[in-house]
């Protein structure tokens, strides 16, 4: 009986540990069932994966902190990028900066927003269409990968001006029925 109790305690500990593993990637998760909290690395574990682009511009999307979350770095701190940022008073287009992957088992609609003004825009690299707002959500079937282009329109912006400090990637299964 004592051995069975120990076994039960061990199993319970393992179960609790597995439920709490990998915290830090998604800031909020809402599910239609109780306590469906799954947190994992952007790079390899999350249901909606965020990974650097496959080309040279993938250097602008980094996990510099090593915490499993991707960050958009267009200010001179990106490794392997000689420049200090996009030109002021110019338009810079960076294709395939990062990718969104549906690692789940159901289609999902994804879109991207940011806290800046219109100076920073997010487009689907494949067709150049906007990914901003839920109305522009792009459906990803299980296993689909969407490359994202970042456009910095600093036509009337002087140097040393912060254009964006937060990017939000939204994924909603309810928005996954469209094209």
């Amino acid at each position, binding site marked *: 009986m004592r051995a069975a109790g120990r076994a039960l305690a061990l199993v319970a500990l393992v179960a609790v540990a597995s439920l709490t593993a990998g915290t830090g*990637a998604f800031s909020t998760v809402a599910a239609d069932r109780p306590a469906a909290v799954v947190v994992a690395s952007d790079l390899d574990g999350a*249901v909606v994966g965020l990974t650097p682009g496959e080309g040279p511009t993938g250097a602008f999307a980094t996990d510099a902190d090593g915490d499993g979350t991707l960050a958009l770095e267009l200010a001179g701190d990106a490794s392997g990028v000689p420049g200090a940022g*996009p030109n002021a008073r110019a338009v810079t287009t960076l294709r395939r900066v990062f990718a969104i992957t549906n690692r789940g088992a159901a289609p999902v609609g994804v879109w991207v927003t940011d806290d800046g003004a219109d100076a920073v825009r997010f487009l689907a690299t494949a067709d150049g269409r906007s990914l901003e707002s839920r109305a522009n959500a792009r459906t990803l079937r299980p296993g689909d990968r969407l490359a994202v282009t970042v456009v910095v329109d600093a036509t009337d912006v002087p140097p040393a001006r912060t254009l964006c400090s937060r990017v939000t990637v939204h994924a909603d299964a309810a928005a996954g029925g469209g094209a």
Partner: protein
Amino acid sequence: MRAAGLAVAVCLLSAAVLAGPTVAGFVVTSHRTADVVTAPDDRAYLGVAVPDRTLANGRHAAVPLATVTNRFPGPLTSVTVRVRDADPRPPRLLSAPTWTGSLAVGERVTVPADVVCGGGGGPHDATETWTVDVAAESPDVAVTVTRRVAVTCEPPAPRGPPDRAGGPPATPGRGRP
């Protein structure tokens, strides 16, 4: 035996919870840090230098007007630099210089132009502002930059010091031996 059954139940419940978002009906909102800050041309991804020029009266070959540097993380496969002068009066471009080529990471190119100052009946110390258009592309990058460069023609230097020997003044138009 009851304990073993309970353990199995706990495992099954854990597995079910972990598998939750892989089935339909979930919303994920992932906030991520972004740092997007504009940079001056001398440090930006596309380096552009268009220093103002002051030129003496006459004709000048291969005046460096614009220098472009690739500071992106990958090569630029198509770079076009074009200098435009809308005013026909001096200073003026003898031809509209255009450079097209590619730039590796860290590589730079300086675009020269043939410029003439003076002549044409205009003032010798005129200043004009020319336009420099730079368009750079690669499969992963596209950037367009338009900058202005001021070109000034200096007035002609005096023909020589005044005669201090007390002799007769030099005859205009003849010069000194």
